[in-house]
């Protein structure tokens, strides 16, 4: 489904992503972990067209997508969230969701004037979906508030909701549950499971290891921009490199990156 071939990206002297290759094949949910600053977010930026790789290739459904602008990639059904949530602060919570629907006829100038009834129908359908998502994320009471007024965790949830509205085939999630209350986290887990039933695939960065272990049949581990492990979470817990770089057997040792 998603393939990255020998991708590189550096900032100044820092090799944020270094000779990185992977192939998601058709695994339902793939986890990505790694110490802070190991390049996970940068990798996401590379895949989704927000950064251009210094070198390397990215394929989605066997089509090359490296070098495509971000919105084209998103239109192909590869949608992401942002690690530091970026809600649209002055739009209402509902509008945040509605704006995320793909292929909206009403976003083109001419149909606005010539196909108003079609647009209304589409809006109604999208609104219904938005309401479902709001309910699920427990944001329904805030639907008409500007999103900038949400708490940190609520913004995080809204961003997740936005991704769901976009009808994606593959979702890239960057720490979707950071700052989210544990009981809601449970629900998100259920949701992800449900969606996989419908054929949606996930590729997610997450520092909550129990959750990763539970959710992801396959786990990739990055360190210093490189892929150091690819396998099941169980194996990862035993892999000395992973333990040393990421999990830590002796907590308390101060570590930088």
């Amino acid at each position, binding site marked *: 489904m998603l393939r990255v071939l020998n991708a590189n990206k550096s900032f100044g002297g820092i090799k944020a992503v270094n000779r990185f290759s992977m192939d998601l094949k058709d695994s339902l949910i793939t986890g990505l972990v790694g110490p802070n600053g190991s390049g996970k977010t940068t990798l996401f930026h590379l895949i*989704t*067209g*927000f950064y251009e790789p210094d070198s390397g290739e990215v394929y989605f459904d066997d089509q090359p997508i490296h070098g495509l*602008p*971000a*919105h*084209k990639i*998103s*239109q192909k059904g590869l*949608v*992401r*969230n*942002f690690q530091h949530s*970026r809600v*649209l*602060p*002055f*739009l209402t919570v509902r*509008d945040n969701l*509605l*704006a*995320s629907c*793909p292929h*909206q*006829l*009403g*976003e*083109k*100038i001419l149909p*606005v*004037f010539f196909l108003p009834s079609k*647009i209304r129908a589409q*809006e109604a359908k999208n609104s219904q979906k938005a309401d479902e998502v709001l309910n699920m994320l427990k944001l329904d009471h805030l639907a008409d508030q*500007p999103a900038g007024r949400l708490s940190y965790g609520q913004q995080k949830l809204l961003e997740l909701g*936005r991704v769901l509205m*976009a009808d994606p085939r593959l979702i890239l999630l960057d720490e979707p549950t950071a700052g989210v209350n544990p009981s809601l986290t449970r629900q998100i887990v259920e949701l992800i499971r449900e969606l996989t039933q419908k054929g949606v695939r996930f590729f997610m960065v997450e520092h909550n290891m129990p959750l990763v272990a539970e959710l992801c049949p396959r786990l990739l581990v990055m360190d210093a921009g490189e892929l150091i492990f690819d396998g099941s979470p169980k194996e990862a817990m035993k892999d000395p490199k992973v333990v040393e770089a990421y999990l830590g057997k002796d907590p308390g040792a101060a570590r930088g990156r």
Partner: protein
Amino acid sequence: MDYLLHIIILALIYTTLAMSLNLQLGYTGLYNFGQVAFFGVGAYTTALITLAGYPVWFGVIMAMTMAGLTGFLIAYPALRLSGDFFGIATLAFGEMARLWFLNERWLTKGPMGLPGIPRPQWIGDGVDSLPWFLLFSLVLTLLAFWWLKHLTSSPFGRALKVVREDEYVARALGKSAVSFKVRAVVAGSTLAGLAGALWAHYITYISPNDFTLQTTILILLCVVLGGKGTIWGPVAGAFLVIFFQELLRFLPIPSEFNRYLAATQGMVFGLVLIILMLKRPQGIIPEHRN
């Protein structure tokens, strides 16, 4: 009576201008400080065309087309810039347009300006009078208003706001930020061209002096004081600013103090601006009520 009609016509012209800027600044977050250039392009286009003997309706359409086209041409390069950089580049562009009108004398007569621009004639003789011109501008402004209202309350308007709030999010959601911005700039400049045409046919004389930074500031005031990012904001703003400006002429200043006339008016204007911003930073019609 004519004075009132005159003020209303001015306010309508500024309404169109403010709406055209609001589409960019209020909805799309583009600080286009060169809006006066499109105003000027519109005015000069129709002036040159109608002075050459073509009918007014043709001039108006060409004014909008030329302004829109200019908008399109500068939009692509300028939109590589973000935020204040776009602001300063468009501001520079606005001044460049004025200097061009000023120096290309073979076409624009330079600082001498173009006198004798005809008023619309096709409705008959009476059109030359102010009530008819008011009607003419009212109809065009209403059309522009209706068009914008439709556009901005549609998903298109929502998408513009997405671009305004966060370009990265727009891109992540599959919307080409550039394409939305270009459309906003082109639509905005087309409307500014319309305002320019109205201005030229109303005043019947134009010169580069009409298209200075001052005008830009006035348009900006209309948008922000009225309430940016709203449908009625620019309308309210334009009427407020123009009427207030004229109202200042009625400050009771005894004739012994004639020398202080302009200074007093200016100080009051400035003071009121400051107070309005302190009391109503979101404008008269805020985008969000608390």
